[in-house]
């Protein structure tokens, strides 16, 4: 067996192993969650969203109540697997915070919060795309990736995000096809 075949085979077996592990998790993850468990994390989700999209010269995720959006979408528009995965992710994050800093995420200072989010951003999903794909399908999108995407959506669609973080043109009237980019030009909120 040459090296290349070996790597290929070990990848395939690795994938199979993970897939069967995933099957077990899938069963656990298919149970409905109690909406209250997620609403109880409202403050934590809000802080996390603010780390991802902080207040600068424009409002951040917290001011735009992105946490409410995230919870509403998770509860109404994603399946039980995704909800469980998200909840587990929040628990992992809290445990990591306590292990590492001896306090909950909400009690951490800004630098510590950044470091914790950084850790989870770096460890979001496996490095192998195929395994990620299988896992996303069976178990839902990884916790951090879901958190980040919903934070982006929630912020950019919110009134503060759309009108101040971005540029919102309610009724454009005219279409101007090619115009010079203005200084500090924000992206259009809608397309």
């Amino acid at each position, binding site marked *: 067996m040459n090296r290349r075949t070996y790597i290929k085979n070990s990848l395939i077996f690795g994938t199979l192993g993970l897939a069967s592990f995933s099957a077990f998790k899938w069963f656990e993850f298919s149970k409905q969650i109690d909406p209250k468990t997620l609403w109880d994390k409202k403050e934590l989700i809000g802080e996390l969203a603010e780390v991802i999209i*902080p207040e600068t010269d424009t409002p951040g995720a917290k001011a735009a109540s992105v946490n409410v959006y995230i919870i509403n979408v998770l509860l109404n528009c994603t399946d039980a697997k995704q909800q469980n995965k998200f909840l587990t992710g929040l628990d992992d994050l809290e445990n990591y915070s306590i292990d590492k800093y001896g306090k909950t995420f909400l009690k951490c200072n800004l630098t510590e919060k950044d470091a914790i989010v950084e850790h989870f951003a770096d460890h979001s999903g496996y490095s192998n795309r195929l395994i990620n794909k299988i896992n996303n399908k069976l178990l839902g999108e990884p916790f951090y990736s879901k958190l980040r995407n919903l934070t982006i959506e929630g912020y950019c669609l919110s*009134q503060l995000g759309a009108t101040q973080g971005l540029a919102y043109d*309610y009724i454009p009237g*005219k279409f*101007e*096809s*090619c*115009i010079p980019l203005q200084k500090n030009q924000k992206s259009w909120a809608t*397309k």
Partner: protein
Amino acid sequence: MYISDKIKNQQSYDAIVIGSGISGGWAAMELCKKGLKTLLLERGRDVKHITDYPTATLNPWDFKFGYNNTNKDREIDPVQSSAYGPADKHFYVSDAEHPYIQERPFHWYRGYQVGGRSLTWGRQCYRLSDLDFMANMKEGIAVDWPIRYKDIAPWYSYAESHIGVSGQRENLSQLPDGEFLTPMELNCIEKHLGESIKKNEQNRLLTIARVANLTRGWDSRGPCQNRNLCSRGCPFGGYFSSNSSTIPAAFATGNLTLRPHSIVTEILFDDQKQKAKGVRIIDALTNEVHEFYSKIIFVNASTIPTAGLLLNSTSSRFPNGFGNDSDQIGHNLMDHHSNAGAYGVHDKYTDQYYKGRRPSGFLIPRFRNLTDNENHSFKRGYNIQGHGERREWMDKSQSLAGFGKDFKAQLTTPGPWTVWMAGWGECLPYYKNKVTLDSDLKDKWDQPLLKIDFSFEENENKMMDDIKQTSADMLEKAGFKDISIFNYNKPGGSTIHEMGTARMGNDPKTSVLNRFNQMHGAKNVFITDGSCMTSSASQNPSLTYMALTARACQFAFDQLKNGHL
């Protein structure tokens, strides 16, 4: 459900139009304008222009779940929810309430309401040409179209002059020019791609889409405000729909009776006169059965339901379905494919942007098989539709790493220019692609469920491969980077251009309708929705339905006047 067997309300009209979508609205307007007392039957609810567009002026933050459909939406509407969003869901049927059978995967998108899918259509308006009308004959495929471009050309002009089409004249034989309002404008990257194509390719060009969006006030509507929220219904009347245009025009004559909630279950045949005498309907609200009678009937229920209605209308004269001497009804179902294309990123013009949301893109008109001696692995051709834009937050979430201040700054500023484009390709008419009635399963009005059996074949698949290649080539020659090619592999029906189930032709033995969309077997019945199409061409078809409808109305009226019907 109990359906009353007592027949009520036996009223007579000059004309009955079945269906109020894009072609039914046209039939109603034309017939009313000619002085005929017309009954317009629609199976769904009424939708009044502006008043019944509840989401038209909402902001993004007015939707609690953003642009996401809910779990419940996906559960009860597995097909429709793949097309609708929270902002236009109310213009789609519920799959749970209106089931159908997919013998092979087929996405059948429906809008049962006054105006039908003219509320949510893509608004692209392209003429067919003799390249299309003569293709079946030249290649010996299916049957020959009974008309040529010269027969329909004046009616294209007539339709365009009414609906208002913005577009650029290009003087192409395969895509004839029309009566155009000022074209919308291409943006920087689209112009760049267009110039590259002009320089590098023979007989190819890039032009602005020809759309029924108004660049100036027209028919007391518009102009388009460049909001790009068309599928919610336009409070400015910026685009053409039955609701904004033909139905109000029909009402203005005083000759129109509109009856929503009227499910037509049967066209009735008069054995003595050897023609249709009227229709039977179920009132969807009361479940009462009514019959209405008329001198002529226009069937505009849309391709799949029209076939179902004809197959369900049996008599001793037509045991296999109304007007089905040829046994072609329900067969030859077509839908364009729009699966294959390419996407690329460009690093120039970073100091340029745009303002406003143009509700249209660009078109690269058909360039394959324009002559008989080209050597491709497939017949016919495709046109490429696409659009250029700067990458915005919706597209960045996957590619943008990190978090915090820098991340936010990148997220909220315009990214590089990108172009997405895909081929809208011709689908050949195959007898085996068909709609039939299920012999057992019924809907809640006790009507047989429709069964759809459709797939794309080798010709379409080979064309999709070519589209990927040519799209990527054109992007590459124009200096695009990170080019990715794709084939979405969406099932049939996804382009929402169903056609062909009651085709036109010269021979009653092999076709359902004659050259004036008149039924060979019942001279007072006319069918001018997508089911009449003998081949699909590659152009978006609605404009052709409108032109054929206006033409058939004139013919029907003349025949009626001269005592032939």
